[in-house]
């Protein structure tokens, strides 16, 4: 970094990495900037007001959501006492995507929330068209789920 030529080069060609904020989400953590661009091209920005329902239990699933800002509450009618609150840089809908194609919980925005939505069809296309990117994302998904399982159950501890 101390190399003056390198500094000069950086001044002449300022390289700002785009969409690096996507790396805050665990499943995009390991992607390089070109792969992030592909992911970014598929994302939809959605804004939800406080107390607005994002999706309801039992409905078909098409997108998974990434929380950019705000808070989201997940609840289920089957077990009303269990409620999760997710904050920014979290993903929800991922387990349902791999399991059953139906929403098992109702999501509600607790405060004004901005979400990024990734459609299932786009997700599948990304994975099949860019196998390296796909492997990275799926590996991260597995890590995320393994971590969740470990947190929830004490069996393997």
């Amino acid at each position, binding site marked *: 970094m101390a190399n003056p030529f390198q500094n000069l080069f950086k001044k002449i060609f300022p390289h700002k990495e785009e969409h690096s904020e996507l790396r805050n989400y665990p499943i995009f953590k390991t992607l390089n900037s*070109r792969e992030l661009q*592909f992911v970014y*091209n*598929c994302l*939809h*920005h*959605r*804004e*939800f007001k406080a107390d*607005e329902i*994002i*999706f309801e239990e039992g*409905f*078909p*699933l*098409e*997108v998974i959501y990434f929380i950019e800002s705000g808070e989201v509450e997940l609840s289920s009618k089957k077990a009303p006492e269990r409620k999760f609150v997710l904050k920014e840089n979290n993903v929800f809908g991922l387990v349902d995507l791999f399991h059953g194609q139906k929403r098992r919980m109702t999501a509600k925005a607790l405060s004004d929330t901005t979400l990024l*939505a990734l*459609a299932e*069809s786009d997700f599948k296309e990304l994975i099949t*068209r*860019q196998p390296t990117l796909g492997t990275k994302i799926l590996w991260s998904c597995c890590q995320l789920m393994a971590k969740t399982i470990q947190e929830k159950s004490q069996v393997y501890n």
Partner: protein
Amino acid sequence: MNWNRIIFILLLLILIVLGIIFYSPIFIYLIISVIVSYIFDPIITWLEYKGMARWISILLVYAVIAGLIAWLIITYIPRLIDQGNQLLRFISRSDVPLNQAIVELPLISSIYEFIQKVDQTIPQLNLLPQFNHLIEIGVQKLGQLPQILISNFQSIISTVALLFTIPFFSYFLLKDKRKIRQALVSLAPNKYFELTLILFNKVDENIGNYLRALLLEVINVGILSTIALTIVGVPYAIVIGAIAGLLNVIPYLGPWIGGFVAGFVILVSGLPTVMILWMALAIFIVQLLDNYVFYPVIVGSTIRMHPLVVLLTVVAGSYFGGVVWMLISVPLVYMIYSLILALHKNLKEFRII
């Protein structure tokens, strides 16, 4: 609902109507551009995932197509001019008047003789003068053709100029495909966001696949028919093959119409009538190959339309807007049908209806 809101919506509606009126002349070109962009999208997306920027891949594809068209023009224009000259010589033969020349054609002359016979048997009928009159009208129309071309010179030029805008439209549609999609989906309210996305993807996929399959089918049947007709020895095999390929857009009926066109050409050009049998066999083999070998590979499984529905659609299309609508109507009805199927299924799943 307050007044400001109502006034705003009203003004917006007026603006939309005015916009539709203003842009209506170019809708057809926009639709053609959308079709073109659907056809090229898979190649460009493939190149994009291989690491090429979208705009470069579009220009590359354009360059290849321009080269192809140039090659076709260089190869076929001389032949086209040749055939045109033949036709002109036929029309402007100095030794016999045109009416005579047309009557001398084998098909027409046999009809002429038949009518003469009928007139002799039933003298009150007087069919012959009427038939002559019909031919005269036809000749007149044929003579007016250059006149029509010249008097509509300006509109033809402007149409051609607009045709050249299609690649530009398609360029932007292809380049900003994702942005356009995101912008359109972002219009949907939160409640219907997922539904909109599902429908959008479904329609996008269905229409894209269908249009591309249609194009491949047209090219495939066109080439196969040309080869088959050349082997049999039908004149103008390329033109008839192209027409047969285009007519294949109409399921069930298209091949028959193509066969009739070929049969008519054989009759007019004075070849032995047995040739029709060979031509029918050739077209039959082409259809067999297409239906059982190529169609399942190219198109795969699609929603089948009942033959009766196809027939009614084609007839209605011909009443609505002539030959062009005959060709367009079946794909159009198919696409609307598949859209409604998807809409119904998803509206039910999302418990809206």
